[in-house]
């Protein structure tokens, strides 16, 4: 982890409910330093871009070979040769650069990106990530760039709901789903709380509509506070 946390004390926001998806995306965007090189994973992480101000100077990378990627293309802007990793047409702002797949993943694997934001099925307190496979025996395995993204950036942020639909926690002591990467996640942004994770375990930075005590009861991990 290379980005320092601004907060000096764990904050409990108890005067509100859990974060909406949009609020969660805004929270992630808030924590991306000005001028960072960032890869936003497909799905929910993509929405973080909507909360990055034009003067943030953040440069987006897409693993299919572009740095300085623009927003989603609309109408006449749509060009089948210009897509993001989710195969959604995007735009080319001034100052962009194209490169081939080996160069693109060298950029990622070589640790040149500052932040990568990914979704997850599970994250462990030590930063293990499971986001590519549910482990269902009949599932067709498909990994795409997930494992490369997981180990490449200086900071890997996960954004997810803290609890699955069945109520089980997705921040766990040990992932039960097949791993995408080991000890690779540095922060977990959820609707209920923001956690730092890593070799020292999980630390609560901020909570939303839930106290640290409540979190402690519902999560099967040791929680620390700032």
């Amino acid at each position, binding site marked *: 982890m290379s980005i320092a946390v601004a907060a000096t004390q764990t904050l409990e926001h108890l005067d509100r409910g859990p974060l909406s998806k949009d609020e969660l995306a805004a929270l992630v965007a808030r924590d991306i330093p000005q001028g960072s090189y960032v890869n936003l994973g497909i799905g929910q992480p993509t929405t973080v871009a909507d909360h990055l101000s034009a003067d943030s100077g953040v440069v987006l990378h*897409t*693993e*299919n*070979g*572009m740095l300085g990627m623009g927003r989603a293309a609309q109408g006449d802007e749509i*060009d*089948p*040769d*210009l*897509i*993001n990793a989710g*195969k959604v047409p995007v735009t*080319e702002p001034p100052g962009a650069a*194209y*490169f*081939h*797949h*080996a160069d*693109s*993943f*060298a950029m*990622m*694997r070589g640790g040149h990106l500052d932040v990568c934001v990914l979704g997850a099925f599970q994250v462990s307190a030590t930063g*293990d990530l499971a986001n590519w*496979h549910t482990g269902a025996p*009949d*599932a*067709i*395995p*498909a*990994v*795409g*760039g*997930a*494992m*490369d993204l997981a*180990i*490449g950036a200086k900071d890997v942020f996960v954004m997810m709901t803290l609890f699955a639909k069945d109520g089980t926690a997705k921040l766990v002591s040990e992932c039960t789903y*097949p*791993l*995408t*990467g*080991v000890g690779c996640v540095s922060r977990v942004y959820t609707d209920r709380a923001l956690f730092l994770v890593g070799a020292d375990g999980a630390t609560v930075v901020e909570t939303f509509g839930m106290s640290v005590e409540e979190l402690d009861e519902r999560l099967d991990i040791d929680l620390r506070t700032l």
Partner: protein
Amino acid sequence: MSRAQIVTSPAEAVAGIEDGSTVLVGGFGMAGMPVTLIDALIEQGASDLTIVSNNAGNGDTGLAALLAAGRVRKVICSFPRQHDSYVFDDLYRSGKLELEVVPQGNLAERMRAAGAGIGAFYCPTGVGTPLAEGKERRTIDGRDYVLEYPIQGDYALIGAQTADPMGNLLYRKTARNFGPVMATAARTTIVEVRETVGLGEIDPEAVVTPGIYVDRILDLSALASQEVAS
């Protein structure tokens, strides 16, 4: 001897691809997908193929049609499962197709290694995951790596934007993707381009794939003119 040859028909472009060949197929989604060459390969009839590509076909066309025609023994790719990959899904589930799932960056780097004469490389991607099971592991300077081997193609089928008579290639936007890497990793590289230009019309500073990596060029615009004329 090895200079790029401009061919005039899709059939000529894919002539000689043998049964059992390993064929690298460019494209990420539809961007850079060599649709005309894939159709020609289906027509040509080579079977028992190993296909290396990022995906494993969508809908009923392109790679999916090649799979549906029963020509493919094995697929090496990063992301076979898509909302419309039903042809692949059925063949895989019924055990008619072998699958090797490779993280996308390893897929690219393993082909780059083949093209660059690297025997194997220690890669941090996938360490500790099911995709690294059975692979040799090593700790170097405190970081864990798995040993990955090159993927060499017999043939590469790729799409590009522009070719000159030397075989130098330009691509367009994110349709570049796997093309330049696959061109280096195959014994015979076959390219469909949208246009050919005269000698000296490509800026030597801007060449993405030097002609040495290109064996056969099919100009889609010339093909379209032929069709209009006939």
